[in-house]
């Protein structure tokens, strides 16, 4: 209906938020806030109801809007706070500041208690956090614009006596200030102190490899640029300031991690490898390209080098590594599917099915689940099967044919989308040989698994292709 219409789609979301709030709050007299929250969540679930070209603009529009609103709210609050602190100095004394601090401490005790009460329930519902994470959860109770707005509403109620109103506003503003400054700024240190800012050793390893890859690519590019004439005037020192090497150092400094040090520990072998590095291929954008690129033999093992000495017999580590790799690969697939939708190769409905299946698989770290759920989708639904029994009635048969065609169409899209996974894998290998190098065995096993699924997918496609004329003949 509305497709790639930038203005209409963005403005419609704003209008929707207001209209919904009005309907729920005034017409239905239920909580408008809740209604808006629920519809917002629903739209977040069906994120792709926004057309592909509007996805990015809509995010930035909303971000700027919210930023602007926050500036306005806090400026107005600041002015009102100043006015009544100057105007009503008699009500607020130094003692009240002390009470604010007491209140701040109580606030955290209350939150700690709530989290402690929650613990058995969370355990029961199958979410396991460590005590460190519970501590962060306790520390993260920041009060912000919502509390300020509510305090302002109280301020405007003339039924409550003035001293109480002013005390409400004063204490709430103090708490907002305290939590935003103390908790907001210290949360960084708390997270770092508890060591939550680091992933599992496996994901760290992969991150390190990615950075290493980036460094090699950058230095290659630099070397090439230095040889070219039009770059002769470039001040390379200034350029270095903006290169990943420097950025990693800055990130380390800000997050107090040691990624750069560990990265430097990896032998820098860029020099001799310059000659043998292949140009990174861009990821093929459509199926035809994918098919042609899959013929490229993968023979870059000569310049792969083992960076870490892994012990394959360490099964737990192996398991973790495998899970980590699977998750990363599935994430890559997710991006691919989105790209295919963006290019118009698959429909929105197919994208939803694929994304749901990938999310499920990612949760359980297994590619098998992804393929299984695709297969599950290919089965005829119960309704269609029952209708098949009555195909002697003309009208039903006509409808049935429509559904069956639709189903075949969906099946082709699903299998075709999945079909590109092996090429994705090979592409990763060509572009990013370090990843495959982290653990040769895991990589081999994963690629074997994917190859077998791709084989099945290819057969399925072939099957569909051959049986399609028969189907068409049957339906006619």
């Amino acid at each position: 209906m509305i497709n790639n219409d930038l203005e209409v789609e963005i403005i419609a979301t704003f209008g929707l938020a207001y209209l919904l709030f009005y309907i729920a709050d005034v017409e239905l007299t239920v909580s408008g806030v809740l209604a808006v929250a629920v519809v917002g969540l629903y739209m977040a679930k069906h994120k792709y109801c926004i057309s592909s070209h509007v996805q990015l603009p809509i995010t930035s529009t909303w971000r700027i809007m919210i930023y602007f609103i926050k500036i306005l709210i806090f400026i107005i609050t600041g002015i009102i706070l100043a006015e009544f602190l100057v105007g009503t100095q008699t009500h607020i004394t130094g003692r009240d500041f002390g009470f604010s601090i007491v209140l701040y401490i109580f606030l955290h005790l209350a939150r700690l208690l709530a989290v402690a009460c929650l613990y058995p329930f969370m355990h029961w519902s199958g979410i396991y956090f460590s005590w460190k994470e519970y501590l962060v959860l306790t520390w993260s109770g920041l009060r912000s614009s919502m509390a300020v707005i509510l305090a302002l509403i109280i301020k405007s109620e003339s039924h409550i006596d003035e001293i109480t109103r002013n005390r409400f506003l004063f204490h709430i503003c103090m708490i907002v200030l305290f939590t935003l400054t103390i908790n907001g700024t210290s949360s960084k240190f708390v997270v770092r102190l508890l060591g939550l800012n680091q992933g599992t050793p496996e994901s760290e390893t992969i991150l390190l490899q990615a950075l290493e890859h980036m460094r090699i690519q950058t230095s290659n590019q630099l070397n090439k640029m230095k040889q070219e004439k039009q770059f002769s005037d470039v001040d390379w020192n200034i350029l270095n300031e903006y290169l990943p090497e420097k950025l990693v150092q800055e990130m380390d400094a800000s997050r107090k991690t040691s990624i750069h040090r560990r990265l430097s520990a990896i032998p820098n072998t860029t020099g001799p490898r310059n000659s043998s590095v292949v140009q990174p291929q861009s990821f093929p954008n459509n199926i035809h390209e994918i098919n042609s690129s899959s013929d490229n033999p993968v023979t870059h093992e000569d310049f792969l080098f083992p960076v870490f000495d892994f012990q394959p017999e360490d099964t737990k580590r192996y398991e973790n590594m495998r899970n980590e790799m699977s998750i990363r690969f599935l994430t890559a697939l997710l991006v691919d599917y989105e790209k295919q939708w963006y290019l118009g190769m698959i429909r929105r409905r197919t994208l939803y099915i694929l994304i749901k299946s990938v999310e499920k698989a990612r949760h359980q770290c297994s590619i098998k689940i992804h393929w299984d759920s695709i297969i599950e989708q290919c089965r005829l639904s119960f309704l269609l099967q029952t209708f098949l029994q009555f195909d002697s009635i003309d009208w039903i048969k006509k409808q049935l044919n429509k559904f069956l065609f639709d189903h075949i169409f969906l099946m082709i899209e699903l299998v075709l989308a999945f079909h590109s996974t092996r090429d994705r894998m090979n592409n990763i290998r060509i572009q990013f040989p370090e990843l495959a190098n982290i653990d040769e065995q895991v990589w081999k096993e994963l690629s074997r698994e994917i190859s077998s699924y791709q084989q099945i997918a290819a057969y399925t496609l072939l099957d569909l292709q051959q049986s399609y004329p028969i189907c068409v003949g049957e339906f006619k």
Partner: protein
Amino acid sequence: MIITDNHTTDSHDVEHHSTGTVILFLSFAVLAACICKLFLSQVLKNKFPVPFTVVVLILGFIIGIIISHIDLIDNNFLEGERQLKDIDPHLLFYIFLPLLIFDAAFNSHFHIIQKQIFSGLLLSAGLGVFIGAPIIALCAIYIFPYDWSWLEGLMFGSILSTTDPVAIVALLHESGASKSLAALIELESLLNDGSTFVIFLIFKDIIVSGSNSAKKIIVDIVKFTLGEYYCI
């Protein structure tokens, strides 16, 4: 969907009164906030770790203090500030809140949140509000020498039960650790806003209208919670 278009007014347009002095003040304030932001990022290189909202709040506070010490009458700028000071908070509420809430929900990572929805509900609607608010109320009633009644204390507690995930969620996302924890905090604050607001409204209505009959309270709670559960 197209019909709703004419409902969308620029959210800052509505509060401008007949005189344009508020615009003068607001434009100045927003530009000043931008300069603050520039100062924080360029001069201090983000080393000074105060959230931007706090800086803006303090900026507004300083402007307010300065202006209250100047007694010029014939000044558009001061006039704008005075008008803004008397703005109806309900207006703020109806203009800004739907957008704030919708944004929080719409830009959440649904697939991560989905698994947390049960504990998020527990943390916010159940325990956060029903444990957090009474404790703060107790503190306010028995420690503060203000002689607040139970209703006032509970209203105070309910206001302070709202949470905002600003700093921590961004931090957790960027450090790449514990996505589920970040999702839980995000979801908690999202649901919290709704349930807290319901409770706040109930107490406010009772205090303002003076009717504290048990029947009305129960009817209100049932009505609001029904709406809540229907929605979820």
